[in-house]
């Protein structure tokens, strides 16, 4: 149980790093960045759920709840910005 939680946390950290690399890579377009940040919030949410079990504190679940709302807000804002600006 503890071992698998640590394995899951390591995998989630690796996934977050890969996603951030995708987002900040100079060759990626703004759509790629928006998709990558949307996925990054979801992966961090998974990490917060696992971390809440590992450290046994329920406050991380609240953090994950708010982070999910913020991720949705971010992708909607970027989508509206993309729709209003000319290419």
């Amino acid at each position, binding site marked *: 149980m503890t071992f698998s939680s640590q394995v899951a946390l390591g995998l989630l950290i690796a996934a977050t790093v890969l996603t951030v690399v995708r987002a900040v890579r100079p060759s990626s377009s703004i759509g790629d960045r928006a998709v990558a940040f949307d996925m990054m919030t979801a992966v961090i949410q*998974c990490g917060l759920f696992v971390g809440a079990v590992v450290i046994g504190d329920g406050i991380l679940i609240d953090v994950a709840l708010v982070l999910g709302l913020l991720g*949705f807000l971010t992708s909607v804002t970027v*989508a509206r910005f993309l729709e209003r600006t000319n290419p």
Partner: protein
Amino acid sequence: MSAVLDVLTAVLFVVGALLAVVASVGLHRLDDTRSRMHAATKPGTLGVLCCAIGAALQVGSTSLVTKLLVAAALQLVTAPVGAHMLSRALTRRDEQRPPATP
């Protein structure tokens, strides 16, 4: 009973983390924004759901389980809406772009 829940939680956590890793590799390997969006959707819904259910099996209190389920349901509702708005904006942007002159 507790051992069964532990094993179930371990499997759910590792499955969610593996989905995240596969999708983040897909973000680098796939060569279109829509294809990358297709890869990024998997941890956004199933990964979060796996990790939330796995955590809900371990936390002992009802309020925390409710919060976890609310977070998972919220993610299930908002992830398709956000992806749809983003892809619609990208498609309209591509349509508005003037065609390349040969």
